[in-house]
């Protein structure tokens, strides 16, 4: 205690800090186990991945990644012997299991769908959200509070509850199973978050900046573009990443409204099947590739995280 007596009374003692640290680190490590296991499984060979007891030491193999990107068929050793020498690592790995590569798998197109839909809807949501947030922040809009609550309440609906009429509506409009349909849908879901978050960010930019610009002869729109937008860049970027994460991870709408062409990765990854059941190394490989962008964003976003997940209701 004597070492701490110089500190304020509310400063926790060194011992209590150590104990707290140890418990939190232990929890963090347990939390990480499933994630580490996903990565380890992705670089295991299929027999290693299902051996008992679970293998922690093993020879790394790229088989999971090869199986993720290709479809394979089992062939007789005679037929395989008659083929020309394998081209590339994947071919080699596949031949070892008496299989030949039949063609590329659907993973890449599904992943591209995820990229197109997530980025497209994020761009639209942030664009519409920025305009609306500026409108709510700077002008006296009649019934502003009611409109803002209405925007928020659209987020309370269970996705399945609106999925039926959206399914019917999209069928009428020819939007079912199209990237455009999914982009519009995710934009609608994300725009509520974008408006709420961005309104908070724009409220923090002093009005005086625009007023000064307008006195200098800028119009309202020019002041918005040249003064407010540059000031709001950080907020816009954070909002964009939150929208991106939602659209990237969404499953319910994607599973119900897309079946082929516009299917995204979340409904696709669980359907990766090998011989006799799920090909776990391939699933793990797909999962790993799918999770990496989000890991990066989490680290980039850690300061804004709280605002984003609570609609800006709590600031840090």
């Amino acid at each position: 205690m004597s070492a701490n007596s110089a500190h304020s009374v509310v400063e926790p003692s060194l011992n209590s800090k150590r104990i707290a640290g140890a418990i939190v680190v232990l929890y963090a490590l347990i939390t990480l186990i499933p994630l580490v296991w996903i990565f380890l499984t992705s670089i295991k060979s299929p027999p290693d991945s299902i051996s008992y007891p679970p293998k922690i030491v093993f020879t790394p193999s790229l088989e999971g990644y090869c199986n993720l990107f290709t479809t394979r068929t089992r062939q007789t050793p005679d037929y395989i012997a008659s083929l020309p020498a394998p081209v590339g690592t994947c071919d080699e790995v596949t031949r070892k299991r008496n299989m030949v590569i039949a063609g590329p798998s659907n993973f890449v197109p599904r992943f591209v769908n995820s990229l197109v839909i997530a980025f497209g809807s994020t761009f639209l949501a942030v664009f519409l959200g920025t305009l609306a947030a500026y409108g709510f922040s700077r002008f006296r809009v009649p019934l502003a509070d009611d409109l803002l609550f209405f925007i928020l309440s659209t987020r309370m609906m269970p996705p399945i509850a609106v999925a039926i009429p959206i399914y019917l509506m999209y069928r009428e409009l020819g939007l079912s199973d199209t990237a455009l349909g999914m982009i519009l849908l995710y934009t609608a879901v994300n725009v509520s978050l974008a408006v709420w978050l961005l309104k908070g960010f724009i409220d923090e930019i002093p009005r005086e900046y625009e007023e000064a610009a307008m006195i200098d002869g800028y119009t309202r729109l020019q002041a918005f573009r040249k003064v407010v937008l540059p000031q709001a860049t950080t907020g816009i970027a954070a909002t964009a990443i939150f929208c991106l994460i939602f659209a990237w991870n969404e499953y319910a709408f994607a599973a119900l409204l897309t079946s082929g062409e516009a299917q995204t990765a979340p409904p696709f990854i669980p359907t990766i099947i090998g011989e006799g059941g799920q090909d776990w190394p391939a699933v793990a490989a797909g999962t790993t590739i799918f999770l990496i962008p989000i890991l990066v964003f989490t680290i980039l976003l850690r300061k804004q995280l709280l605002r984003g997940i609570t609609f800006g209701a709590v600031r840090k």
Partner: protein
Amino acid sequence: MTISHSSIVEKAADATARATPASFARQVRGLSDRAIAWLFIAPAITLLLAINIFPLIWAVYLSFTNYRANRPNAPIQNVGLGNYERVLNDPDIWQAMQTTAHFVFWTILLQTVIGFALAYLIDRKFRGHAFWTTIILIPMMLSPAVVGNFWRFLYEPQIGLFAYAVSLVSGIPTSDVQMLGNVSLAPWAIVIVDTWMWTPYVMLICLAGLRSIPDYIYEAAEVDRASPWRQFWSITVPMALPFIMLAVLFRGIENFKMFDMVTLLTGGGPGSVTEVASITLKRAAFESWATGRASAFAIVLFVAVFGLANIYVRALNKVKQR
């Protein structure tokens, strides 16, 4: 530039704008402020009306009909409140609601207790707390469906890591750790994954709550010689309570809608012990194609969430005002 100065300028500009004919004002200043306000807000509102409100109204309409989405050309009959009557008298639906309530209760209880405890510990500000906090936050940023699918592998009794770890610790043979196949264990399997994923969420909000408590309150308590236990219950918990309640609200709404994780982990099984409301709804709408009845159920669910959330927000506001 001071505020008073700017507002005088603004008033002067407003007066000029009012005195100027609209067409001239447009030439000089571009669009009027009112026009810009609506121009800026309208697109977002229109999109929400088209893709959220219109479908909801359509669902209300469908809930009074016997429409089936797989037979778009069959004549649509108005069945009045028939669908609602069937939904409210359907024992399967009540079972699903009960299952959902259990999930919401247990996940929120576990997540609040563990999340608050973690936040309390992280608030000690030990060395490296920022780094470990970021690590803990990772699961909640991931896709519940994709991660839930992988947890199915972790739960496999013969090959999965979970069963192995349990048997290593407790000595129970792995073949008895059938998390997803056993009727009494399957609900807990989902509770475990949900807690793993979302405890960080509650933790983060609790942490913000704890950090919002000013130091001088503790200093005053220290001067009054309040015991740490007393300080915890009289200062820490009440001051953080609005934040905890906010976390519970957000988690409650989310878990009431829970769909992706359950679908991937158990698909509602074994039997129907983990069949939560969204899964029943999905089955009625997209497997039985009873669109009208499913819509009625959807409306009942929405009203339930909306009503409960509103009551809860009122309680939350009372706590905040204290």
